[in-house]
């Protein structure tokens, strides 16, 4: 339409926003992405870096597998590396009950064509001699991978820019309004621009846009309590995750061991703070020392967290607005969005360009919160019970 600044405005320069910009630009759309800080500086840049296929929500596998193929192609797509490593993922159970849960996850993954190995007893110790005595059984998925979140988003943003997307860092969107069949986007100290479509990929800050259009979600901020050790000899190749979430750990070839774990921590999107309570760090250190006892004397050198958006059913919001044609959402990834990023970008671009995507997104509609909120088991597991905000 004549007079429009560009076809699509994307609000939020996280992984979802930059990959959407990438695929839209590749389809020849004129795109401007607005990010209040630097790209990839919030949860996209400070997450654990897991590209995990095991243990996902069943309805997410088509999107997840699509995304995985894009991660495997990251270098060709972006022209840069992001420390992508096909490390495999080892899901470990401490007892028979947990092993039964692993079996459930394994069947679900296998139904989507993912190869899962079930390993127990001596074989477990032979293949992964560094596992602690408390590990009873495990499932292993060889295709799962890891990447460096600090590098991935800026690399994808540069690739989008090379395809013609305009990436505007340090520009805060103060208002988004309907205007005719398009949108007006107001920028802090940088005027007003008009677009045909808007993608709301504003992470923990996304409700401020959705609610302007009469729709909402019970989104709340939280963060993963992370720590990292000094470098030690590289032995632990697969990422290791305990079924109860007490340990989510991986070693990078440089030698550092990165650790996340539940329960998650509070974070504050207004003050832009995500402190890690030291008691959680200590608890996580204990869990890691028991699961990987060879690390007992390794030193923890740093902790960090981030500001992630969570929803009580532990599923993201992805897809078109239910109130306003031309508005699309991608937020609330509940701490598992890193793996989905490129796939979300590809599918959203298809929705915007073609009006439809071969990747099913209906389970993630913002409309699902109309009839009350389902609280998932995952939610109960990942948060401190008394402190959890159920909105």
């Amino acid at each position: 339409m004549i007079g429009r600044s560009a076809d699509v405005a994307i609000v939020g320069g996280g992984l979802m926003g930059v990959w959407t910009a990438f695929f839209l630009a590749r389809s020849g759309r004129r795109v401007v992405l607005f990010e209040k800080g630097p790209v990839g500086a919030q949860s996209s840049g400070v997450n654990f870096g897991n590209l995990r296929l095991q243990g996902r929500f069943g309805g997410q596998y088509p999107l997840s597998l699509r995304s995985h193929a894009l991660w495997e192609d990251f270098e060709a797509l972006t022209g840069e590396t992001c420390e992508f490593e096909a490390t495999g993922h080892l899901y470990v159970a401490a007892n028979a009950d947990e092993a039964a849960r692993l079996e459930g996850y394994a069947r679900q993954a296998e139904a989507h064509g993912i190869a899962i190995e079930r390993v127990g007893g001596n074989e477990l110790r032979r293949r992964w001699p560094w596992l602690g005595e408390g590990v009873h059984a495990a499932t292993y998925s060889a295709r799962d991978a890891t990447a460096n979140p600090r590098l991935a988003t800026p690399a994808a943003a540069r690739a989008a820019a090379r395809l013609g997307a305009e990436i505007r860092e340090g520009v805060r969107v103060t208002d988004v309004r309907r205007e005719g069949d398009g949108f007006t986007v107001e920028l802090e100290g940088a005027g007003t621009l008009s677009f045909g479509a808007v993608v709301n990929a504003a992470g923990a800050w996304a409700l401020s846009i959705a609610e302007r259009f009469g729709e909402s979600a019970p989104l709340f901020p939280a963060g993963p309590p992370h720590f990292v050790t000094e470098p030690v000899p590289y032995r632990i190749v697969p990422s290791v995750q305990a079924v109860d979430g007490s340990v989510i750990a991986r070693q990078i070839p440089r030698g550092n061991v990165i650790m996340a774990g539940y329960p998650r921590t509070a974070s504050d999107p207004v003050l832009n703070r995500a402190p890690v309570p030291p008691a959680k760090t200590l608890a996580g250190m204990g869990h890691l020392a028991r699961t990987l006892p060879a690390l007992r004397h390794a030193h923890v050198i740093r902790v960090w967290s981030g500001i992630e958006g969570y929803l009580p059913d532990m599923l993201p919001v992805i897809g078109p607005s239910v109130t306003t044609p031309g508005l699309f959402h991608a937020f609330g990834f509940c701490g598992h969005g890193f793996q989905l990023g490129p796939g979300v970008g590809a599918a959203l671009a298809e929705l915007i360009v073609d009006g439809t995507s071969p990747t099913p997104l209906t389970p993630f509609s913002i409309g699902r919160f109309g009839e009350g909120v389902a609280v998932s088991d995952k939610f109960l597991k990942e948060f401190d019970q008394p402190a959890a905000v159920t909105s």
Partner: protein
Amino acid sequence: MTRVAIVGAGPAGIRAAAALVEAGIRPVLLDEAARPGGQGYRTPSPGLDLDMAALMGSEAAHHARLHGLFAAIHDRVDYRPETLVWAVDGRTLHVATQGRAGMVAFDALLLATGATDRVVPCPGWTKPGVFTLGGAQAILKDQGCFIGRRVAFVGSSPLLLLAALQYQSLGAHVAAVVDTTPFGAKLAALPDLAASPRTLRRGIAYRTKLRAAGIPVHDGAAPVAIEGRDGVEGVRLRHGAREWTIACDAVALGHGLKPETQLADLAGAQFAYDPVFRQWLPETDADGRAGPSLYLAGDGAAIGGAYAAEASGTLAAAALLADHGRPQPKATLRRLRQEVARLRRFQRGLARAFAWPAGQAAALPDDATLCRCEGITAGEVRRAMAQPLGPREVNRVKAITRVGMGRCQGRICGPALADIVAAAAGLDHAAVGRLRGQAPVKPIPLVLGAEPAG
């Protein structure tokens, strides 16, 4: 009774503890070291027969007095040596004592965390045999050892002269003292330096003694590189157009001090940029208040030297007592404030006379190591910044390049990093930010979490 935690048993922490003891409070005094005294007034290892009079020189009596004071209050203080405070969470300190985790609850927190060395890297600075200046002194005072047989003292600091004299008087061969600040800058700083004539006289005396001992003192020369195959064999220097090499087997490198502010950061202190020190310093009022129930004293608040540390320790304790319903005599407070202000003014003079060589830091060659923990070169930082959407702020540079992400968390490379980032971004030094503090303040072993905290 008010529960007071003091972190650091140097001159500021000991004086603060003494003032609280006098008011009938039994403070918890937490210190990383095995013995009290802090860095400058440290106690040598037991069984070591060091000539303390020779080592401490004009400060020997002062050293003895501080340790005498500590001995006098020892049984009225909950003194916990070998205790690292690694995190602050609300009104609780998380500590590690000899491999065991613990917590200390407090109503008021007084941080007397001291200072650490500030160094400008140069090519070769990671070779075995290169120590920070403070490290060279600590090894001597703690263990009675020299860092080498033939030592060069290089940098920009009045402590270069003092350390060289200490080494010389205990029998080491001092190859040279190389000060990067021109002599003219020292003359220009004289008005501020006159704030403490006694210290100024002492500094001039160090210089005279070194000259008398035949030790070359070079002003305005800068290190081009520290050379050697397996270790240090020499320092290549440049002064104007002239370049030459001094033979030595160890180098003590120091460009002044920087406050250890990580705990203040975690405890919620605000920071402001100080253009004279070219540092971000925690904000306090004249008495050391830095926030609700948070007090800072000594070099950890602002570099002031040992005397200022003692006075500011007493002053911060007085402020703490006043805030907890025990008003202090106005005259005492006034005298202490004047003393601290005068001594810190002197240090500002020193910061001009022995200036941080920002240009040398900014010009660190591309292939030189900047971050020694992570092995990141200055060139890697510049290349990351030069790409599209490249970072222009130190925390983002850290995120993209890993610089400052290692064991020391940027405590060593941080100052030079800021100059390199400012130069590459074409920004003012104050505009590139400061590395944010994160727990743990120093590395802690995983086993610390294997036992419940008690």
